[in-house]
């Protein structure tokens, strides 16, 4: 083990230099959950087999996600001292061609290349006939803070993180700033929680910092059960060290004794990478007793939960870590007074904490200069549905949502027409196609009836029936209701019954008023956001697509004809 942070940094730099400009080609393959679903692990195996066949020594790294999920499996080839060249939608046949022509022969397969990314310090000429990947619509709008390393570094190798500036923020906090100054940087940044509520992070931290109890906890929430959002898991898979460093700094700033990272059991990719990051941080002395030679001592534990969407609610999350049913608690007392195991606790989302290292490194003012008014910094969006380019992008807050859809995501697949966007997870809201000329800003979006929420954006084309999608969202909410508050437990079931009736074209004019009544009661009588916001899918759909609901009820027809197709959900079989 190197004896000082400086020595660790030098060692990391040496290894990074060797990877980039040593004697071996460096081949990277994106293997987050999105890559896995596209077959990236098979491609990585094929690459290794082809290299062995041809007797070439190269470094093969299974990295995280570059964000261009639509192009996966994405193969990234960098010859020693050269630029990175990316091949999209690679299959096993093209692997052998790319290995023999490019890796062995030194000539890129231009026809199959999606783009190149120029490497700083490389004297090699930029490849002829291959576009600059940074000009690709999905990358051109980006400003990567949290995702700065995603797809570039091996998530299992902490040295690659350190070589790219990792752990300098912690070092700065511990050696140059005191706890209060660290918190002040976060305050100056204007950072707001990225889990959905957009509460100012520094204010939340100050509640815990102000509590003099000797044992205090910082919890990181990576439950992320939202359909359409995968950015938390993706951060853990692409750059887990940035989160771990954020959790350590949060512990220092708030005076906490221990951090917990909370992940759903079964998500092995995020779990294994996060465990490796924690273990390696401990080996290098970034966790444990007297971190970096200071009097700050801190530990991080990874806690797993069973399948439960409500476990992502902050008080239910504490119940789950304590090993109980994931049901929300009454508040007050608030977590900063009585939290996990009765101790003062602060809970933040993965994305929120992942911003912290860069904020401390570059200063709060730098972060506050990005974004729009009180929505500072960037937002990490998960693009899915009927879009041309699906994937994950990190863009400045204040970007127009219209540009996200029509520019960055390339518009709709097969040149179809956008009908609506489903935003911010199942408890978020839909936005009609005519209403997406809005800025990505917490307040602006809320006024439009949508939320930034977890960052999920699902785009639906005009072949989608709004009643059918609303039914699907409510089926999810019904299935995931924890059952503690009866207005949510029964309200969701009742809403689902009504929506199923509408989909069978058997609804009546009373049904809309009935849903409204249920929604009001759910909002008033539920302990947590699941019930309080659970009517959003219906109310926002009615707001933009009232006439389409009327068609189902009054004319007994479904304009897209999709309602009557067979529909399944666990609500039917586990009810």
């Amino acid at each position: 083990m190197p004896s000082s942070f400086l020595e660790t940094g030098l060692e990391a730099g040496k290894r990074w230099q060797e990877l980039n400009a040593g004697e071996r080609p460096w081949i990277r393959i994106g293997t987050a959950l999105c890559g896995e679903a596209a077959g990236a692990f098979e491609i990585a195996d094929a690459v290794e087999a082809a290299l062995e066949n041809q007797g070439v020594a190269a470094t093969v790294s299974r990295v995280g996600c570059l964000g261009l999920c639509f192009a996966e499996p994405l193969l990234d080839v960098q010859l020693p001292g050269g630029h990175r060249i990316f091949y999209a939608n690679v299959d096993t046949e093209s692997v052998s061609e790319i290995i023999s022509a490019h890796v062995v022969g030194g000539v890129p397969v231009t026809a199959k290349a999606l783009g190149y990314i120029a490497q700083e310090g490389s004297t090699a000429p930029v490849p002829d006939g291959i576009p600059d990947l940074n000009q690709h619509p999905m990358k051109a709008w980006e400003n990567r803070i949290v995702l700065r390393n995603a797809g570039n570094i091996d998530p299992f190798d902490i040295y690659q993180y350190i070589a790219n500036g990792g752990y300098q923020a912690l070092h700065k906090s511990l050696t140059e700033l005191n706890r209060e100054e660290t918190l002040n940087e976060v305050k100056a940044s204007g950072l707001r929680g990225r889990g959905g509520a957009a509460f100012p992070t520094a204010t939340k931290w100050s509640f815990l910092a102000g509590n003099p109890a000797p044992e205090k906890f910082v919890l990181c929430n990576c439950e992320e059960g939202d359909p359409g959002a995968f950015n938390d898991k993706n951060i853990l898979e692409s750059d887990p060290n940035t989160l771990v460093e954020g959790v350590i700094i949060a512990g220092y700033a708030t005076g906490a004794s221990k951090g917990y990272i909370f992940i759903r059991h079964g998500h092995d990719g995020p779990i294994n990478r996060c465990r490796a990051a924690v273990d390696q941080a401990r080996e290098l002395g970034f966790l444990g007793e007297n971190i970096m030679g200071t009097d700050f001592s801190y530990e991080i534990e990874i806690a797993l939960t069973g399948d439960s969407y409500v476990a992502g609610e902050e008080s239910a999350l504490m119940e789950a870590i304590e090993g109980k049913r994931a049901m929300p608690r009454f508040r007050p007392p608030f977590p900063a007074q009585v939290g996990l195991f009765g101790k003062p606790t602060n809970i933040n989302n993965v994305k929120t904490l992942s911003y912290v290292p860069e904020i401390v490194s570059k200063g709060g003012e730098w972060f506050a200069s990005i974004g729009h008014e009180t929505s500072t910094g960037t937002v990490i969006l998960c693009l899915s549905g009927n879009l041309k380019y699906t994937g994950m992008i990190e863009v400045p807050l204040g970007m127009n949502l219209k540009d996200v859809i029509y520019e960055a995501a390339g518009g709709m697949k097969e040149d179809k027409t956008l009908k609506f966007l489903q935003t911010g997870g199942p408890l978020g809201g839909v936005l009609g196609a005519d209403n997406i000329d809005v800025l990505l800003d917490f307040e602006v979006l809320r006024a439009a009836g949508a939320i930034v929420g977890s960052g999920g954006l699902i785009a639906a084309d005009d072949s989608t029936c709004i009643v059918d999608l609303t039914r699907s969202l409510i089926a999810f909410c019904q299935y995931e209701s924890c059952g503690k508050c009866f207005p949510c437990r029964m309200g969701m079931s009742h809403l689902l019954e009504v929506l199923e009736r509408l989909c069978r074209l058997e609804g009546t004019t009373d049904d809309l008023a009935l849903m409204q009544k249920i929604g009001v009661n759910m909002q008033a009588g539920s302990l947590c956001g699941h019930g309080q916001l659970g009517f959003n899918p219906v109310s926002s759909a009615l707001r933009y697509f009232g006439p389409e609901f009327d068609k189902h009820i009054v004319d007994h027809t479904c304009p897209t004809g999709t309602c009557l197709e067979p529909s399944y959900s666990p609500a039917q079989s586990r009810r």
Partner: protein
Amino acid sequence: MSGLVQRIHDAVHGQTQPTVTVLSSLLAVEDELGYIPKEALEFVAEFSNATVNDVWAVASFYPNFRFDPPAEHVVDVCWGASCHLVGAMNIFKSVLEAAGLDDEGDTPDKRLTVRFNSCLGACSQAPVIAMDHHLAGRVNPESAAKHVTHLLEQDGHAK
């Protein structure tokens, strides 16, 4: 001690994380056996100084737990909104047909479990299914059925 109880004992006592709870112990048993037998409810109750009722309250809350031995293979079909939009219902129908089932559950010969998953976490590759927890994205009804047939040609025991 019977073989089953021994395995439960080893799984529960083999937990290495500092925070050991009823839920973490049940997850450890699920990882080892693929289900939570009655013996595990009793064992975890005694181990945690709780009642069987307390343990059952936790086990019955989380739908990832099952209480009879698992089938040999499991196919998860995602029905999240992203997958729903691009045809998850037709995928589910096709997977059920390939499995010979009417709804989610086990085949009578216990070779296959088909179940809904509310989000497999690869929304950008929708529609997504998982064969023995290995993801496959951008499937269509035909390729999904092929995945199921291929899975059934293999021996194995899904956890």
